[in-house]
């Protein structure tokens, strides 16, 4: 019996880690992601395991996503971590119950990737980018921001 229990734990661990695996994304993938979310209000959260404020705001973003998903809100996370931190990033997302699929930047050139998202963005984290239902970027939140401000901006677009 104990052996079955152990196998069960192993299977659960395998399934959850497999489901939380980060999908690599580059500039073209980002454009596709935004285009594929038309019809929904999209908030893209750029974060990293090394970014303390990003990790602090992640649970609040997840809560917001759960509360507003039925109204057409979609939260997508993109990790700016390096490949060596991928496992840690997956663990953080799993612990927070972040929506899947989740992504990790894998661009040939970080600078081109940053510029393709918003030329005014320096690459500083945390960074949130809000898109309306037509896929147009409406605004960005760079740095720590009160969640009430994010929620107000999202709700206005729903």
């Amino acid at each position: 019996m104990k052996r079955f229990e152990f196998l069960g734990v192993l299977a659960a661990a395998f399934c959850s880690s497999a489901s939380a695996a980060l999908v690599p994304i580059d500039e073209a993938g980002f454009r596709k992601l935004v285009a594929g979310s038309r019809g929904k209000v999209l908030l893209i959260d750029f974060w990293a395991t090394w970014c303390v404020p990003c990790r602090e705001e992640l649970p609040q973003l997840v809560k917001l996503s759960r509360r507003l998903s039925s109204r057409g809100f979609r939260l997508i996370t993109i990790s700016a971590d390096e490949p060596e931190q991928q496992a840690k990033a997956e663990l953080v997302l799993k612990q927070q119950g972040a929506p899947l699929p989740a992504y990790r930047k894998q661009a040939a050139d970080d600078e081109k990737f940053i510029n393709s998202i918003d030329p005014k963005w320096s690459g500083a984290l945390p960074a949130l980018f809000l898109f309306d239902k037509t896929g147009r970027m409406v605004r960005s939140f760079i740095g720590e921001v009160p969640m009430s401000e994010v929620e107000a901006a999202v709700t206005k677009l729903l």
Partner: protein
Amino acid sequence: MKRVAIFAALLATLLLGEAFGQEFKVGSTVSDFTLSDLKGNTVSFSSLRGPTTVVIFISTRCPISNSFNDRMNDIYEDYSAKGVKFVFINANANESADEVAKHAKSVGFVFPVYKDFNNVVADRFGAQSTPETYVIDHDGVIRYHGYIEDSTNPARVKRHGLKDALDAVLAGQPVATAETKAFGCTIKRVRPTS
């Protein structure tokens, strides 16, 4: 109608710049500003600058900034020998002068660090992240703005933005890539910038 649209666009640009407070950009001249040393004394940029000056915004807590600590020491030593002056600035509201002093000692910085209280100087430069660097030439003109190197992992570095810019400025050449970007930590301001 076209004239109205142009005027509106110009006004919007001015207002945006005003809101952000950014004065110093690549190609513009840096006017004097003041910082505090870690004992609380006011220090002017004009007393710190040289024929070529590097301004770097750094952090005690940002892992990205910290991944460059040894490289900043190396660049400081290599280019100080060539007459370049360095101004390392901590503009983070959540990192006190005392914390900055302890951090500098613990990581073995060979250069002084100055505090920019209320991120006044960071706002004038429009600096968003740490580490973020600027190279200023003998005329006070910003010739480079961006990263030190393009990767936190020294083994993965492909471009040496700061060194390349310094070499060009010291050789009297144009800087090939005057603006660069990389992922970093936001400067923790006393007020939000966006």
